[in-house]
Protein backbone atom coordinates (compact mmCIF):
# COMPACT_ATOMS: atom_id res chain seq x y z
CA UNK A 1 0.00 0.00 0.00
CA UNK A 2 1.19 3.49 -0.76
CA UNK A 3 2.27 5.52 2.28
CA UNK A 4 1.13 8.74 0.69
CA UNK A 5 -1.31 9.60 -2.10
CA UNK A 6 -1.13 12.24 -4.83
CA UNK A 7 -4.02 14.08 -3.16
CA UNK A 8 -2.14 14.18 0.15
CA UNK A 9 0.99 15.50 -1.55
CA UNK A 10 -1.11 18.27 -3.15
CA UNK A 11 -2.56 19.14 0.25
CA UNK A 12 0.88 19.23 1.91
CA UNK A 13 2.29 21.38 -0.89
CA UNK A 14 -0.55 23.83 -0.32
CA UNK A 15 0.17 23.92 3.43
CA UNK A 16 3.86 24.55 2.66
CA UNK A 17 2.99 27.35 0.19
CA UNK A 18 4.41 25.57 -2.83
CA UNK A 19 2.41 26.08 -6.03
CA UNK A 20 3.57 22.75 -7.48
CA UNK A 21 2.60 21.86 -11.04
CA UNK A 22 0.51 18.82 -12.04
CA UNK A 23 3.61 17.27 -13.58
CA UNK A 24 5.57 17.73 -10.34
CA UNK A 25 2.73 16.20 -8.34
CA UNK A 26 2.89 13.09 -10.51
CA UNK A 27 6.63 12.80 -10.00
CA UNK A 28 6.75 13.70 -6.30
CA UNK A 29 3.92 11.35 -5.29
CA UNK A 30 5.90 8.27 -6.34
CA UNK A 31 9.24 9.55 -5.01
CA UNK A 32 7.84 10.64 -1.66
CA UNK A 33 6.08 7.30 -1.29
CA UNK A 34 9.43 5.48 -1.66
CA UNK A 35 11.09 7.82 0.85
CA UNK A 36 8.29 7.61 3.41
CA UNK A 37 8.13 3.82 3.25
CA UNK A 38 11.89 3.74 3.89
CA UNK A 39 11.92 6.21 6.77
CA UNK A 40 8.87 4.56 8.37
CA UNK A 41 11.39 1.91 9.50
CA UNK A 42 11.91 4.03 12.64
CA UNK A 43 8.64 2.46 13.76
CA UNK A 44 10.40 -0.92 14.12
CA UNK A 45 12.32 0.36 17.14
CA UNK A 46 10.73 -0.34 20.54
CA UNK A 47 10.95 3.12 22.04
CA UNK A 48 7.73 3.69 23.97
CA UNK A 49 9.53 4.62 27.20
CA UNK A 50 12.44 6.44 25.60
CA UNK A 51 12.54 10.23 26.02
CA UNK A 52 12.88 12.16 22.75
CA UNK A 53 16.04 14.13 21.92
CA UNK A 54 15.37 17.43 20.19
CA UNK A 55 18.90 18.69 20.56
CA UNK A 56 22.31 17.25 21.41
CA UNK A 57 23.34 20.20 23.59
CA UNK A 58 21.19 20.33 26.74
CA UNK A 59 21.13 24.11 27.16
CA UNK A 60 18.09 26.06 28.34
CA UNK A 61 17.33 29.75 28.65
CA UNK A 62 20.54 31.06 27.16
CA UNK A 63 20.42 34.80 27.73
CA UNK A 64 22.92 37.51 26.94
CA UNK A 65 23.80 40.43 29.15
CA UNK A 66 21.15 43.13 28.95
CA UNK A 67 23.35 45.75 27.33
CA UNK A 68 22.77 47.92 24.29
CA UNK A 69 24.76 46.78 21.25
CA UNK A 70 24.66 48.09 17.67
CA UNK A 71 22.21 46.34 15.36
CA UNK A 72 21.48 46.31 11.65
CA UNK A 73 20.31 49.72 10.45
CA UNK A 74 17.11 50.24 8.47
CA UNK A 75 18.92 50.72 5.18
CA UNK A 76 20.94 47.51 5.60
CA UNK A 77 17.90 45.56 6.72
CA UNK A 78 16.01 46.61 3.60
CA UNK A 79 18.99 46.14 1.26
CA UNK A 80 17.90 42.70 0.07
CA UNK A 81 14.16 43.33 -0.03
CA UNK A 82 12.37 42.54 -3.29
CA UNK A 83 10.28 45.67 -2.74
CA UNK A 84 10.50 48.48 -0.19
CA UNK A 85 8.60 51.70 0.34
CA UNK A 86 9.11 54.53 2.81
CA UNK A 87 11.68 52.56 4.78
CA UNK A 88 9.47 49.49 5.05
CA UNK A 89 9.04 46.13 3.34
CA UNK A 90 6.26 46.48 0.76
CA UNK A 91 4.09 43.38 0.47
CA UNK A 92 1.12 42.40 -1.69
CA UNK A 93 -2.30 42.84 -0.09
CA UNK A 94 -3.15 40.37 2.64
CA UNK A 95 -6.93 40.85 2.86
CA UNK A 96 -9.47 40.50 0.08
CA UNK A 97 -10.88 43.78 -1.19
CA UNK A 98 -14.13 44.77 0.50
CA UNK A 99 -17.12 44.40 -1.78
Amino acid at each position, binding site marked *: MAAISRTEVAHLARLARLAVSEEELDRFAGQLDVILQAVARVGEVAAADIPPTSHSVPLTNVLREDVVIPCLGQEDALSGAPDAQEGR*FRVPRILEEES
Partner: protein
Amino acid sequence: MSLTGKTAVELAGLIAAGEVSAVEVAQAHLDRIAAVDQRVHAFLHVDTDGALAAAAAVDARRAAGEELGPLAGVPVAVKDVLATKGVPTTCASKILEGWRPPYDATVVQRLRDAGLVILGKTNMDEFAMGSSTEYSAYGPTYNPWDLTRIPGGSGGGSAASLVAYEAPLAIGTDTGGSIRQPGAVTGTVGAKPTYGGTSRYGLVAFSSSLDTPGPCARTVLDAALLHQVIAGHDPRDSTSIPAPVPPVVQAARQGATGDLAGLRIGLVREFAGEGAEPGVLASVREAVEALVKLGAEVVEVSCPHFTYALPAYYLIAPSECSSNLARFDGVRYGLRVGDDGSRALEEVMSLTREAGFGPEVKRRIIIGTYALSSGYYDAYYGQAQKVRTLITRDFTAAFEQVDVLVAPTTPFVAFPIGSRTSDPYQMYLADLYTIPSNLYGGPAISVPCGLSEGLPVGLQVMAPTLADDRMYRVAAALESAVPALTPPDL
Protein backbone atom coordinates in the same frame (compact mmCIF):
# COMPACT_ATOMS: atom_id res chain seq x y z
CA MET B 1 56.45 23.35 -6.52
CA SER B 2 54.05 26.13 -7.44
CA LEU B 3 52.34 28.12 -4.67
CA THR B 4 49.01 26.40 -5.31
CA GLY B 5 50.54 22.98 -4.63
CA LYS B 6 51.54 23.92 -1.11
CA THR B 7 49.70 23.23 2.12
CA ALA B 8 48.32 26.00 4.31
CA VAL B 9 51.14 25.42 6.81
CA GLU B 10 53.77 25.80 4.07
CA LEU B 11 52.13 28.93 2.66
CA ALA B 12 51.81 30.52 6.10
CA GLY B 13 55.50 29.78 6.72
CA LEU B 14 56.59 31.36 3.46
CA ILE B 15 54.46 34.44 4.06
CA ALA B 16 55.64 34.81 7.67
CA ALA B 17 59.27 34.52 6.54
CA GLY B 18 58.69 37.24 3.96
CA GLU B 19 59.65 34.92 1.10
CA VAL B 20 56.37 35.53 -0.64
CA SER B 21 53.62 38.08 -0.10
CA ALA B 22 50.01 37.28 0.74
CA VAL B 23 49.05 39.12 -2.45
CA GLU B 24 51.26 36.80 -4.53
CA VAL B 25 49.70 33.76 -2.86
CA ALA B 26 46.18 35.07 -3.44
CA GLN B 27 46.98 35.92 -7.07
CA ALA B 28 48.40 32.43 -7.69
CA HIS B 29 45.17 30.84 -6.47
CA LEU B 30 42.98 33.30 -8.40
CA ASP B 31 45.00 32.46 -11.54
CA ARG B 32 44.51 28.74 -10.90
CA ILE B 33 40.76 29.28 -10.49
CA ALA B 34 40.68 31.21 -13.76
CA ALA B 35 42.54 28.37 -15.46
CA VAL B 36 40.58 25.34 -14.23
CA ASP B 37 37.26 26.31 -12.70
CA GLN B 38 35.42 26.31 -15.98
CA ARG B 39 35.93 22.53 -15.93
CA VAL B 40 35.53 21.93 -12.17
CA HIS B 41 32.87 24.51 -11.27
CA ALA B 42 33.82 24.54 -7.60
CA PHE B 43 32.97 28.24 -7.26
CA LEU B 44 29.68 30.09 -7.57
CA HIS B 45 31.34 33.44 -7.00
CA VAL B 46 35.01 34.47 -7.07
CA ASP B 47 35.72 37.62 -5.07
CA THR B 48 38.89 38.74 -6.84
CA ASP B 49 38.89 42.31 -5.54
CA GLY B 50 37.98 41.32 -1.98
CA ALA B 51 40.66 38.63 -1.89
CA LEU B 52 43.43 40.89 -3.19
CA ALA B 53 42.40 43.68 -0.79
CA ALA B 54 42.40 41.30 2.18
CA ALA B 55 45.80 39.93 1.15
CA ALA B 56 47.22 43.43 0.77
CA ALA B 57 45.94 44.28 4.26
CA VAL B 58 47.79 41.26 5.69
CA ASP B 59 50.98 42.30 3.92
CA ALA B 60 50.60 45.85 5.29
CA ARG B 61 50.06 44.61 8.84
CA ARG B 62 53.09 42.38 8.58
CA ALA B 63 55.18 45.24 7.20
CA ALA B 64 54.08 47.32 10.20
CA GLY B 65 55.47 44.65 12.49
CA GLU B 66 52.15 43.33 13.77
CA GLU B 67 51.97 39.87 15.26
CA LEU B 68 49.65 37.81 13.03
CA GLY B 69 47.91 34.46 13.46
CA PRO B 70 49.30 31.13 12.20
CA LEU B 71 47.19 31.17 9.01
CA ALA B 72 47.50 34.88 8.18
CA GLY B 73 47.56 35.44 4.43
CA VAL B 74 46.43 31.92 3.55
CA PRO B 75 43.55 31.75 1.06
CA VAL B 76 40.29 29.98 1.92
CA ALA B 77 37.14 29.11 -0.01
CA VAL B 78 33.79 29.41 1.78
CA LYS B 79 30.69 27.32 1.16
CA ASP B 80 27.92 29.52 -0.19
CA VAL B 81 25.65 28.79 2.78
CA LEU B 82 27.56 31.18 5.06
CA ALA B 83 26.73 34.87 4.98
CA THR B 84 29.51 37.07 3.63
CA LYS B 85 28.94 40.81 3.94
CA GLY B 86 28.47 42.40 0.53
CA VAL B 87 29.45 39.21 -1.29
CA PRO B 88 26.71 37.12 -2.97
CA THR B 89 25.35 34.30 -0.81
CA THR B 90 22.91 32.07 -2.67
CA CYS B 91 22.92 28.66 -0.96
CA ALA B 92 23.02 27.48 -4.61
CA SER B 93 19.33 28.40 -4.82
CA LYS B 94 17.46 30.58 -7.28
CA ILE B 95 15.45 31.98 -4.39
CA LEU B 96 18.56 33.83 -3.12
CA GLU B 97 20.09 34.67 -6.50
CA GLY B 98 22.06 37.90 -6.20
CA TRP B 99 21.47 38.32 -2.46
CA ARG B 100 24.30 40.19 -0.75
CA PRO B 101 24.06 39.79 3.03
CA PRO B 102 24.39 42.93 5.14
CA TYR B 103 26.50 41.04 7.71
CA ASP B 104 29.15 38.32 8.11
CA ALA B 105 28.60 34.90 9.66
CA THR B 106 30.67 34.43 12.82
CA VAL B 107 32.79 31.80 11.06
CA VAL B 108 33.50 34.27 8.24
CA GLN B 109 34.26 37.05 10.73
CA ARG B 110 36.77 34.80 12.48
CA LEU B 111 38.46 33.96 9.18
CA ARG B 112 38.85 37.66 8.45
CA ASP B 113 40.06 38.43 11.98
CA ALA B 114 42.72 35.71 11.64
CA GLY B 115 43.94 37.24 8.36
CA LEU B 116 42.72 34.48 6.07
CA VAL B 117 41.98 35.59 2.53
CA ILE B 118 38.51 34.62 1.28
CA LEU B 119 38.74 33.68 -2.41
CA GLY B 120 35.03 33.22 -3.03
CA LYS B 121 31.95 31.11 -2.43
CA THR B 122 31.74 27.43 -3.29
CA ASN B 123 29.06 25.38 -4.97
CA MET B 124 26.81 23.05 -3.00
CA ASP B 125 23.54 21.19 -3.13
CA GLU B 126 20.73 23.72 -2.79
CA PHE B 127 20.41 24.72 0.90
CA ALA B 128 22.89 21.91 1.69
CA MET B 129 20.34 19.22 0.86
CA GLY B 130 22.06 16.50 -1.11
CA SER B 131 25.08 14.24 -1.37
CA SER B 132 26.48 15.06 -4.81
CA THR B 133 26.22 18.82 -5.49
CA GLU B 134 23.96 17.89 -8.42
CA TYR B 135 21.07 19.68 -6.69
CA SER B 136 22.78 23.07 -7.12
CA ALA B 137 20.51 25.40 -9.08
CA TYR B 138 23.63 26.61 -10.90
CA GLY B 139 24.85 23.27 -12.23
CA PRO B 140 26.98 20.51 -10.71
CA THR B 141 30.59 20.54 -9.55
CA TYR B 142 32.87 18.00 -11.23
CA ASN B 143 35.22 15.78 -9.25
CA PRO B 144 38.83 16.52 -10.32
CA TRP B 145 39.64 12.80 -9.94
CA ASP B 146 37.25 12.10 -12.80
CA LEU B 147 35.29 15.00 -14.26
CA THR B 148 32.35 12.73 -15.12
CA ARG B 149 31.80 11.96 -11.43
CA ILE B 150 30.31 13.76 -8.44
CA PRO B 151 32.52 15.48 -5.82
CA GLY B 152 30.14 14.51 -3.00
CA GLY B 153 27.75 16.83 -1.31
CA SER B 154 26.43 19.00 -0.12
CA GLY B 155 29.85 20.66 0.13
CA GLY B 156 31.17 19.36 -3.19
CA GLY B 157 32.47 22.77 -4.24
CA SER B 158 34.61 23.21 -1.13
CA ALA B 159 36.11 19.71 -1.46
CA ALA B 160 36.69 20.03 -5.21
CA SER B 161 38.39 23.42 -4.77
CA LEU B 162 41.02 21.72 -2.59
CA VAL B 163 41.74 18.80 -4.87
CA ALA B 164 41.81 21.11 -7.93
CA TYR B 165 44.45 23.19 -6.08
CA GLU B 166 42.24 26.26 -6.35
CA ALA B 167 42.35 26.74 -2.56
CA PRO B 168 44.48 25.22 0.22
CA LEU B 169 41.65 25.49 2.75
CA ALA B 170 37.86 25.57 2.62
CA ILE B 171 34.90 25.89 4.94
CA GLY B 172 32.03 23.42 4.80
CA THR B 173 28.95 22.68 6.85
CA ASP B 174 27.92 19.22 7.99
CA THR B 175 24.29 18.37 8.78
CA GLY B 176 24.31 14.69 7.77
CA GLY B 177 27.78 14.29 6.28
CA SER B 178 28.16 17.29 3.96
CA ILE B 179 31.79 17.90 4.98
CA ARG B 180 32.94 14.31 5.46
CA GLN B 181 31.40 12.58 2.44
CA PRO B 182 32.80 15.13 -0.08
CA GLY B 183 36.14 14.78 1.73
CA ALA B 184 36.04 11.01 1.27
CA VAL B 185 35.19 11.00 -2.43
CA THR B 186 37.73 13.70 -3.32
CA GLY B 187 40.59 12.31 -1.23
CA THR B 188 40.69 15.32 1.11
CA VAL B 189 40.26 15.83 4.85
CA GLY B 190 36.89 16.98 6.17
CA ALA B 191 36.02 17.45 9.82
CA LYS B 192 32.69 17.94 11.54
CA PRO B 193 33.38 19.52 14.93
CA THR B 194 31.26 18.80 17.99
CA TYR B 195 27.80 20.32 17.43
CA GLY B 196 27.88 23.72 19.11
CA GLY B 197 31.67 23.86 18.89
CA THR B 198 31.44 26.15 15.86
CA SER B 199 28.91 28.96 15.56
CA ARG B 200 25.80 28.78 13.40
CA TYR B 201 25.35 32.56 13.41
CA GLY B 202 25.09 33.60 9.77
CA LEU B 203 24.86 30.01 8.56
CA VAL B 204 21.64 29.80 6.55
CA ALA B 205 19.66 27.25 8.54
CA PHE B 206 18.75 23.85 7.11
CA SER B 207 18.36 21.66 10.20
CA SER B 208 19.21 23.75 13.24
CA SER B 209 19.77 20.90 15.70
CA LEU B 210 22.33 19.32 13.34
CA ASP B 211 24.03 22.05 11.24
CA THR B 212 27.75 22.34 12.08
CA PRO B 213 30.36 24.41 10.21
CA GLY B 214 33.79 22.85 9.94
CA PRO B 215 37.16 22.77 8.17
CA CYS B 216 38.14 21.14 4.85
CA ALA B 217 41.80 20.79 3.86
CA ARG B 218 44.31 18.59 2.05
CA THR B 219 46.08 17.60 5.28
CA VAL B 220 44.95 16.83 8.82
CA LEU B 221 47.17 19.52 10.35
CA ASP B 222 45.79 22.17 7.99
CA ALA B 223 42.26 21.13 8.96
CA ALA B 224 43.12 21.36 12.66
CA LEU B 225 44.61 24.84 12.23
CA LEU B 226 41.49 26.01 10.43
CA HIS B 227 39.30 24.36 13.09
CA GLN B 228 41.18 26.33 15.75
CA VAL B 229 40.47 29.60 13.91
CA ILE B 230 36.72 29.15 13.46
CA ALA B 231 35.76 27.29 16.66
CA GLY B 232 34.84 28.56 20.10
CA HIS B 233 31.91 30.04 21.97
CA ASP B 234 29.78 32.65 20.22
CA PRO B 235 27.23 34.58 22.26
CA ARG B 236 25.27 35.17 19.04
CA ASP B 237 24.41 31.45 18.77
CA SER B 238 22.33 30.20 21.70
CA THR B 239 23.40 26.59 21.02
CA SER B 240 27.09 27.46 21.01
CA ILE B 241 28.93 25.56 23.76
CA PRO B 242 30.61 27.81 26.35
CA ALA B 243 33.74 25.67 26.63
CA PRO B 244 37.33 26.03 25.46
CA VAL B 245 38.23 24.71 21.99
CA PRO B 246 39.72 21.20 22.35
CA PRO B 247 43.50 21.15 21.64
CA VAL B 248 43.07 20.05 18.02
CA VAL B 249 46.33 21.44 16.60
CA GLN B 250 48.43 19.86 19.32
CA ALA B 251 46.60 16.55 18.76
CA ALA B 252 47.23 16.66 15.01
CA ARG B 253 50.95 17.23 15.61
CA GLN B 254 51.05 14.45 18.19
CA GLY B 255 49.24 12.05 15.84
CA ALA B 256 51.67 12.83 13.03
CA THR B 257 54.44 11.17 15.06
CA GLY B 258 52.64 7.92 14.23
CA ASP B 259 52.35 6.67 17.80
CA LEU B 260 48.93 5.40 18.85
CA ALA B 261 50.13 3.19 21.71
CA GLY B 262 47.44 2.72 24.32
CA LEU B 263 44.62 4.05 22.13
CA ARG B 264 41.50 1.90 21.91
CA ILE B 265 39.63 1.97 18.61
CA GLY B 266 36.17 0.51 18.07
CA LEU B 267 35.19 -0.81 14.67
CA VAL B 268 31.43 -0.36 14.30
CA ARG B 269 30.11 -3.85 13.54
CA GLU B 270 26.89 -2.59 11.94
CA PHE B 271 28.90 -0.58 9.41
CA ALA B 272 31.55 -3.19 8.63
CA GLY B 273 29.76 -4.93 5.81
CA GLU B 274 26.23 -4.21 4.74
CA GLY B 275 25.65 -1.72 1.99
CA ALA B 276 29.25 -0.77 1.14
CA GLU B 277 31.23 -1.47 -2.02
CA PRO B 278 33.83 -4.25 -1.57
CA GLY B 279 36.65 -1.91 -2.62
CA VAL B 280 35.66 0.60 0.06
CA LEU B 281 35.56 -2.10 2.73
CA ALA B 282 38.94 -3.49 1.63
CA SER B 283 40.55 -0.05 1.83
CA VAL B 284 39.05 0.58 5.28
CA ARG B 285 40.29 -2.82 6.47
CA GLU B 286 43.81 -1.93 5.38
CA ALA B 287 43.53 1.39 7.20
CA VAL B 288 42.49 -0.36 10.39
CA GLU B 289 45.47 -2.72 10.05
CA ALA B 290 47.71 0.33 9.68
CA LEU B 291 46.29 1.78 12.90
CA VAL B 292 47.03 -1.49 14.68
CA LYS B 293 50.65 -1.31 13.44
CA LEU B 294 50.87 2.16 15.02
CA GLY B 295 50.05 0.65 18.38
CA ALA B 296 46.30 1.04 18.61
CA GLU B 297 44.16 -1.72 20.03
CA VAL B 298 41.17 -2.41 17.76
CA VAL B 299 38.02 -4.14 18.95
CA GLU B 300 34.65 -4.63 17.31
CA VAL B 301 31.86 -2.64 18.92
CA SER B 302 28.14 -3.00 18.38
CA CYS B 303 25.94 0.07 18.00
CA PRO B 304 22.61 -1.63 17.30
CA HIS B 305 20.58 1.50 16.59
CA PHE B 306 22.98 2.95 14.02
CA THR B 307 21.06 1.15 11.29
CA TYR B 308 18.07 3.34 12.16
CA ALA B 309 20.06 6.57 11.97
CA LEU B 310 19.36 7.11 8.26
CA PRO B 311 15.55 6.85 8.52
CA ALA B 312 15.53 8.94 11.73
CA TYR B 313 17.65 11.62 10.07
CA TYR B 314 15.47 11.78 6.97
CA LEU B 315 12.53 12.60 9.24
CA ILE B 316 14.26 15.00 11.64
CA ALA B 317 16.20 17.02 9.06
CA PRO B 318 13.24 17.54 6.67
CA SER B 319 11.01 18.46 9.62
CA GLU B 320 13.41 21.15 10.75
CA CYS B 321 13.97 22.29 7.15
CA SER B 322 10.25 22.65 6.47
CA SER B 323 10.10 25.06 9.39
CA ASN B 324 13.38 26.88 8.67
CA LEU B 325 12.69 27.43 4.98
CA ALA B 326 9.35 29.09 5.76
CA ARG B 327 11.42 32.29 6.01
CA PHE B 328 11.78 32.35 2.22
CA ASP B 329 8.50 34.11 1.63
CA GLY B 330 9.49 36.77 -0.89
CA VAL B 331 9.10 39.58 1.63
CA ARG B 332 12.43 40.49 3.24
CA TYR B 333 15.06 39.19 0.82
CA GLY B 334 15.48 37.13 -2.29
CA LEU B 335 13.12 36.35 -5.11
CA ARG B 336 9.51 37.53 -5.46
CA VAL B 337 7.37 36.15 -8.26
CA GLY B 338 3.87 37.08 -9.48
CA ASP B 339 3.46 40.37 -7.64
CA ASP B 340 1.56 42.14 -10.43
CA GLY B 341 -0.99 43.87 -8.24
CA SER B 342 -3.68 41.30 -8.89
CA ARG B 343 -2.52 38.64 -6.44
CA ALA B 344 -2.75 38.42 -2.67
CA LEU B 345 0.30 37.76 -0.48
CA GLU B 346 -0.30 34.06 -0.03
CA GLU B 347 -0.49 33.43 -3.76
CA VAL B 348 2.66 35.46 -4.40
CA MET B 349 4.39 33.49 -1.66
CA SER B 350 3.41 30.15 -3.21
CA LEU B 351 4.47 31.21 -6.69
CA THR B 352 7.78 32.58 -5.35
CA ARG B 353 8.60 29.38 -3.49
CA GLU B 354 7.57 27.22 -6.42
CA ALA B 355 9.84 29.16 -8.77
CA GLY B 356 12.71 29.61 -6.31
CA PHE B 357 13.16 26.13 -4.84
CA GLY B 358 14.51 23.10 -6.69
CA PRO B 359 12.99 19.60 -6.58
CA GLU B 360 14.99 18.17 -3.65
CA VAL B 361 14.23 21.16 -1.44
CA LYS B 362 10.53 20.85 -2.29
CA ARG B 363 10.55 17.11 -1.55
CA ARG B 364 12.10 17.70 1.85
CA ILE B 365 9.74 20.54 2.73
CA ILE B 366 6.78 18.30 1.86
CA ILE B 367 8.15 15.35 3.86
CA GLY B 368 8.82 17.60 6.84
CA THR B 369 5.36 19.11 6.63
CA TYR B 370 3.95 15.57 6.60
CA ALA B 371 6.10 14.29 9.50
CA LEU B 372 5.09 17.26 11.66
CA SER B 373 1.39 17.20 10.84
CA SER B 374 -1.12 16.11 13.47
CA GLY B 375 -1.90 12.44 13.25
CA TYR B 376 1.57 11.61 11.90
CA TYR B 377 3.76 13.50 14.38
CA ASP B 378 4.08 10.69 16.94
CA ALA B 379 4.76 7.96 14.39
CA TYR B 380 7.32 9.96 12.42
CA TYR B 381 8.97 13.00 13.98
CA GLY B 382 8.34 11.94 17.58
CA GLN B 383 9.55 8.41 16.98
CA ALA B 384 12.64 9.67 15.14
CA GLN B 385 13.55 11.83 18.15
CA LYS B 386 13.33 8.76 20.39
CA VAL B 387 15.58 6.83 18.02
CA ARG B 388 17.97 9.78 18.27
CA THR B 389 18.14 9.18 22.03
CA LEU B 390 18.94 5.50 21.47
CA ILE B 391 21.70 6.35 18.99
CA THR B 392 23.21 8.71 21.57
CA ARG B 393 23.07 5.90 24.13
CA ASP B 394 24.86 3.59 21.67
CA PHE B 395 27.66 6.14 21.38
CA THR B 396 27.85 6.62 25.16
CA ALA B 397 28.06 2.87 25.74
CA ALA B 398 30.68 2.45 22.99
CA PHE B 399 32.86 5.22 24.39
CA GLU B 400 32.96 3.42 27.74
CA GLN B 401 34.89 0.68 25.92
CA VAL B 402 36.91 2.60 23.34
CA ASP B 403 38.39 6.06 22.74
CA VAL B 404 37.15 6.50 19.16
CA LEU B 405 34.99 4.64 16.65
CA VAL B 406 35.92 4.02 13.03
CA ALA B 407 33.88 3.14 9.96
CA PRO B 408 33.93 3.94 6.26
CA THR B 409 32.93 7.56 5.63
CA THR B 410 30.57 6.66 2.81
CA PRO B 411 29.51 3.33 1.26
CA PHE B 412 30.68 4.08 -2.27
CA VAL B 413 33.36 5.94 -4.19
CA ALA B 414 32.42 8.97 -6.31
CA PHE B 415 29.55 7.88 -8.55
CA PRO B 416 28.87 9.09 -12.10
CA ILE B 417 26.96 12.37 -12.40
CA GLY B 418 23.29 11.64 -13.06
CA SER B 419 23.33 8.06 -11.77
CA ARG B 420 21.30 8.64 -8.60
CA THR B 421 19.18 11.73 -9.21
CA SER B 422 16.11 9.90 -10.48
CA ASP B 423 15.78 7.90 -7.25
CA PRO B 424 16.20 10.34 -4.35
CA TYR B 425 16.43 7.58 -1.75
CA GLN B 426 19.48 6.08 -3.48
CA MET B 427 21.13 9.47 -2.99
CA TYR B 428 20.29 9.44 0.74
CA LEU B 429 22.25 6.19 1.18
CA ALA B 430 25.51 8.14 0.66
CA ASP B 431 24.99 9.46 4.22
CA LEU B 432 24.49 6.03 5.81
CA TYR B 433 27.66 6.12 7.93
CA THR B 434 28.01 9.85 8.58
CA ILE B 435 24.57 10.53 10.08
CA PRO B 436 24.98 8.90 13.52
CA SER B 437 27.52 11.51 14.67
CA ASN B 438 25.17 14.31 13.61
CA LEU B 439 22.28 12.88 15.61
CA TYR B 440 24.58 12.36 18.62
CA GLY B 441 26.38 15.69 18.22
CA GLY B 442 29.90 14.35 18.55
CA PRO B 443 32.82 15.20 16.27
CA ALA B 444 33.86 13.07 13.28
CA ILE B 445 36.48 13.37 10.57
CA SER B 446 37.07 11.78 7.18
CA VAL B 447 40.68 11.14 6.25
CA PRO B 448 41.89 9.63 2.95
CA CYS B 449 42.87 5.98 3.38
CA GLY B 450 43.37 4.61 -0.12
CA LEU B 451 41.90 4.06 -3.56
CA SER B 452 39.21 1.78 -4.90
CA GLU B 453 38.83 1.53 -8.67
CA GLY B 454 41.27 4.44 -8.88
CA LEU B 455 39.02 6.69 -6.78
CA PRO B 456 39.58 7.93 -3.20
CA VAL B 457 38.19 6.20 -0.11
CA GLY B 458 37.86 7.87 3.29
CA LEU B 459 38.11 6.45 6.78
CA GLN B 460 35.80 8.07 9.30
CA VAL B 461 36.93 8.59 12.89
CA MET B 462 34.17 9.43 15.39
CA ALA B 463 34.93 10.78 18.87
CA PRO B 464 32.94 11.69 21.98
CA THR B 465 31.37 15.13 22.33
CA LEU B 466 34.05 17.79 22.93
CA ALA B 467 36.87 15.30 22.30
CA ASP B 468 37.56 16.72 18.83
CA ASP B 469 41.29 16.47 19.54
CA ARG B 470 41.10 12.66 19.66
CA MET B 471 39.85 12.34 16.09
CA TYR B 472 42.62 14.62 14.84
CA ARG B 473 45.23 12.50 16.59
CA VAL B 474 43.99 9.29 14.94
CA ALA B 475 43.50 10.95 11.55
CA ALA B 476 47.00 12.43 11.59
CA ALA B 477 48.49 9.08 12.57
CA LEU B 478 46.73 7.34 9.69
CA GLU B 479 47.78 10.09 7.30
CA SER B 480 51.40 9.47 8.28
CA ALA B 481 51.06 5.73 7.65
CA VAL B 482 49.33 5.56 4.25
CA PRO B 483 50.63 6.88 0.92
CA ALA B 484 49.35 10.35 0.00
CA LEU B 485 46.76 10.36 -2.78
CA THR B 486 47.71 12.42 -5.80
CA PRO B 487 44.87 13.50 -8.07
CA PRO B 488 45.39 13.44 -11.84
CA ASP B 489 46.47 16.67 -13.55
CA LEU B 490 43.54 18.75 -14.71
